[in-house]
């Protein structure tokens, strides 16, 4: 059963087509990640679903409600974690969570929510004493205290340290196990790969790809990425012809290969013959990120995920 249905959604601000005819369906208990660079239309699309924005055209349905007119009855069944929202700093964590809990028909126990987000030690501390990551966790707590059936998370872990991120992921996993349908936006590929059953990639207001992370990664082909550095005095042109051909990425030489065993063998034999040390020699499988970069014109660059490293 589709919990969220979006059909041909359009939303413009003046001349800017923020969302330009997108469609998707999200099933009950599914976790879907909206990926895309800044300005892709992620937040606009999500805010239409949350009821903050009125759409220009198209059909939108969440839990059978039209978010634009669902009103209080709709908002009782959803949870929202905004991309950036502050707090009234004079209050304690517990006071704010308790106040928010009072708004919903079937809230979770306040203590349970504070524990779930890992703020039990800070429960009675004023919000102004919280660190950035702790404030974000309070945001999360306010989003889930109403025990929502559908949870919207707009960049939930931006600004988290690695361990806080892991905890947030565990929390989302737990919510999924409890049957919450989740739509999240994120910049982080590993987050989407870890959390999402399905990924929708947006660029310039349009859906450019959709599918499971594995399915999308497979789209980049079965090629393996081989990368290494050459000493300054070696001309890359002297290398043998390998895979799809060489490509310079910064100081790193990169190539894609459909036969990594043969190509790596040829490469290392050449290096030994010429007494050249290939620093940082790395084999990586194509990741969701590679697909993403390809689809969104490479606006974000991060190191590919290494599956095997041959160190010097």
């Amino acid at each position, binding site marked *: 059963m589709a919990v969220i249905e979006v059909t041909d959604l359009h939303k413009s601000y003046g001349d800017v087509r923020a969302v330009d005819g997108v469609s998707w369906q999200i099933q009950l208990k599914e976790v879907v990640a909206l990926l895309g660079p800044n*300005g892709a239309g992620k937040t606009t699309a999500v805010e239409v679903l949350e*009821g903050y*924005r009125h759409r220009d055209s198209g059909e939108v349905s969440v839990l059978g409600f039209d978010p634009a007119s669902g009103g*209080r009855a709709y908002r009782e069944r959803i949870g929202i974690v905004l991309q950036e929202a502050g707090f009234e700093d*004079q209050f304690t964590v517990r006071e704010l969570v308790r106040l928010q809990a009072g*708004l919903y028909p079937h809230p979770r*126990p*306040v203590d349970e929510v504070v524990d779930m987000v890992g703020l039990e030690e800070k429960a009675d501390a004023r919000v102004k004493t919280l660190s950035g990551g702790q404030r974000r966790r309070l945001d999360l707590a306010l989003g889930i205290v109403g025990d929502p059936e559908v949870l919207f998370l707009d960049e939930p872990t931006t600004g988290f340290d690695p361990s806080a991120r892991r905890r947030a992921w565990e929390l989302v996993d737990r919510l999924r196990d409890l049957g919450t349908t989740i739509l999240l936006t994120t910049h982080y590929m590993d987050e989407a790969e870890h959390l999402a059953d399905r990924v929708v990639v947006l660029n310039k207001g349009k859906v450019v790809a959709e599918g499971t992370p594995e399915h999308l990664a497979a789209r980049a082909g079965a090629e393996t990425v081989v990368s290494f550095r050459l000493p300054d005095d070696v001309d890359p042109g002297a290398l043998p012809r390998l895979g799809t051909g060489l490509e310079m990425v910064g100081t790193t030489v990169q190539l894609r290969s459909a036969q990594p065993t043969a190509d790596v063998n040829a490469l290392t034999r050449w290096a030994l013959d010429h007494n050249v040390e290939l620093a940082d020699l790395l084999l990586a499988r194509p990741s969701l990120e590679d697909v993403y970069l390809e689809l969104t014109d490479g606006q974000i660059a991060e190191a590919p995920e290494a599956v095997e490293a041959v160190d010097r």
Partner: protein
Amino acid sequence: MTLTQPAPTTAAVPTVPARGMLLRQTRHELVGLVRTPVLLFFALLFPLAFFVILSSLLGNETLDFRSGVRLAQFLAPAFASFGIAMATLSVMAIGFAEIRFNGVLKRLTGSPLPRWVLLGGRMSAGTLLAIGATVLLLAVGVVLYDVQILWERMPGFAVTVLVAAVSFCAIGLAIAALAPSFQAAIAIANGVVIPLAFLSDLFVIGELPEWLDAVGWAFPLKHLVNALGDGLNPFLDTSGFYLDHLAAIAAWGVAGAVVASWAIRRDAVRAERGTRVRHPAGAGGTSRAAARQAGRDAVPRRHGRPAAAALIVDQVRHANTLHWRDWSSPFFGIAFPVLLVLLFPTIIGGADPSIRLEVAQTIAATMTVYGTAVIAYVNMPQGLAEAREANVLKRWAGSPLPSWALFTGHAVSSTLLALLVMVASYALAVSVYGIVVPPSWPSAVVVLVVSALSFAALGMGVVSVVRGTQSALAVCLGSLITLSFVSDIFLFGVDFPPWLDALAWTFPLRHAVNAFGDAMAADASGVVLGLDHLAVIIAWGVAGLLVVLTRFNAEPVHFGRRASRGA
């Protein structure tokens, strides 16, 4: 990997010349000032408004004052002094506290900007603003009220302005560096300047009791007021240099600088030890009430949609907590009016108990209404505007909380606080001055409740139309202060020109003051509701409510602008 790097050098790198840095920093601070209308309002327009209103109202011949000297000749230097204090002490305290608590200071500390350039730039900007305030005030005085400038004394006058500006900057800096929070810095700065003004021959016409006079001389503002006042006094034969006043002002400046440098160094030491500047007020310590609540937090609060009453009670409690945990709200809404109830009868009535009693009876009523207006029309809407700016209201808008519950909760909270001001004012006035609480007091309570709700609706109406937090504050506070002068609050028993009189009666504040005052008059009895007054008050409240219902938006800025850059 081989990387060619430029060899690190310690010499031969030309440093930016300090003088250029100071000029640039000063210009930066001035641009910042110009773009903060609320600071300009307090430094330039606020003193000017006082000066113009008092000169217009009192400057005519019916008030024979100080043996025939044109009143404006004395008012101009007094309000120039006030402007200097606002432009330096207040602006410095608020501005520096802001960068201290929002992280800008921390970033600048990590940059090559020398600290003296940062402080020097701010002080120069404050001093220029103070000079601007003085020149503006004198110019208006010369043009409108025939104030005479005594040119041969101007060097002394200018030196006094400069010494005072720099000294007050240092005091403001000390306040900013000591304050435990940004809000506290605002409250302390204003809490220092405004009461000092009363002790420093500024608002008070006539003689202060001897002890208050002595207290006033201990502070620098009174020295400034008198140095500038004597500098413009045509009946005195002086040089314009008053070394005693200058020494007193400078001594305060030096003390401020010493305290400020100690406090700034303390911040640095704390940062090194890893203690945050914002120390947790009440963090960690679990009160007994919180512990009692904690047990209940372990189970779900309810099953089924919360009742309207429960929502409103929660909102009232929330708004109340917000009020009390904010430094400035209780000060300006409650403590300040109640303080005036205590001070005014003594200041005006002096040793005459019958005048004191009469003034106390009036002032208890006017200050109750004034405090109500500050709470419901300024502080509460300001809290809402800040919550909107921080996207807190957007989060509420995405929750099941109906907006009527939010508005009702805040309006009711303001009303309860207004009743508290009434109780505090009358308790004090009864115990100190022995005023009478008439049997018609329940009518006064009705008037106050209606007024508070109307003021709250109006304030929320302003916040609905004026989207910027600081602009909303400037509109609310500016209109309240201006109206207070013509609504029998700060000035009473004054004959206004007919047009001003008629204009003042179109606004709700004067009606509230008079309806409440009539119901609390010493000889009142029975039901004293003043229905004509109430009708005007309610009409304004309804108008405010309509604006809220049609124009209120929970989001901080026009979302088109956000979305064009946002994801």
